[in-house]
């Protein structure tokens, strides 16, 4: 993250540089442990989107869009939706829609609960990328409206 003129003061930028990685990591933790501890795809996805929004508010629009552009966010959102649908449709191999076709595994282990971690990851991609693109869209319109 280079120094840019845009964004907030150097205090906010320094704090952001220290915390934004931790926030993103916490989001990944919430998603991956969604079937073991409270949390899950929705909350983790929102936390990951908040990490990017944090970056955008502190450093300005260009820095955040360089990390995750709007086209990439749209691609990730579509990927999440298709992944969720295809995991659900793969259940037809065992009989019906949303059938838990992967082995259950040991409870309380990270690799357990069949399709639930996969669904959590898909929902996280969908929610995080979707909310980030809503924020970017609203922000860009807000800026063009102010110039008039």
């Amino acid at each position: 993250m280079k120094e840019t003129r845009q964004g907030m003061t150097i205090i906010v930028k320094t704090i952001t540089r220290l915390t934004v990685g931790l926030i993103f990591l916490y989001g990944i933790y919430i998603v991956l442990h969604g079937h073991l501890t409270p949390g899950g795809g929705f909350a983790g996805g929102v936390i990951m989107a908040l990490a990017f929004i944090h970056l955008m508010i502190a450093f300005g629009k260009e820095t955040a869009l360089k990390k995750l552009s709007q086209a990439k966010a749209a691609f990730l959102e579509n990927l999440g939706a298709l992944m969720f649908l295809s995991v659900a449709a793969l259940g037809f191999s065992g009989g019906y829609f949303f059938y838990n076709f992967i082995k259950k595994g040991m409870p309380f282990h990270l690799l357990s609960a069949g399709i639930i971690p996969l669904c959590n990851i898909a929902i996280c991609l969908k929610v995080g990328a979707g909310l980030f693109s809503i924020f970017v869209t609203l922000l860009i319109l807000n800026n063009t409206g102010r110039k008039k």
Partner: protein
Amino acid sequence: MLELHLLLLFMIVAAVVAVEIKDLLSSVIAVGAVGLGVSLSFLLLKAPDLAITQLVVEILCLIILIRATINKDLPLVKDGRWFFNTLSTLSFLAVFLLFAYFALKSLPVFGKPIMRIAEVYLKEGLAKTGAANLVAAIILDFRGYDTLGEATVLFTAVIGVMAVMRKVGRIRK
């Protein structure tokens, strides 16, 4: 139970402040206080999944609303058509209360057949899905269709925002 009642009182006061205050930014902050109260009451009622989700969504909504309302003072339209406004509000209220009366009459008594469906989930959830977090087991396995519908709602919301706020095809003035 006392904490819950205090929280409810705080939320009602914050909601009244949010409606009545003149400044738009203060109103947004008061709405955020209501959301924080909802999150804390979820935590008191032992629903940590909902508390986490409510808290992060509330923060995101607050950021978006503050970005949208800062440096702006949208006037509240009060004059004109007050007769029509009052009449339509009262008639919608009457229709809502009528339907609520008939709908609530056919509901079972509050807490009477306690945990009839939840009992099955609690007994068989771990064995059937292997997920230690029972909330994840319910929303992604037993009730997968509901989550699919929710994902569709969010997808439609994103498409709607992008269609309304698009740059391409907009007539320049």
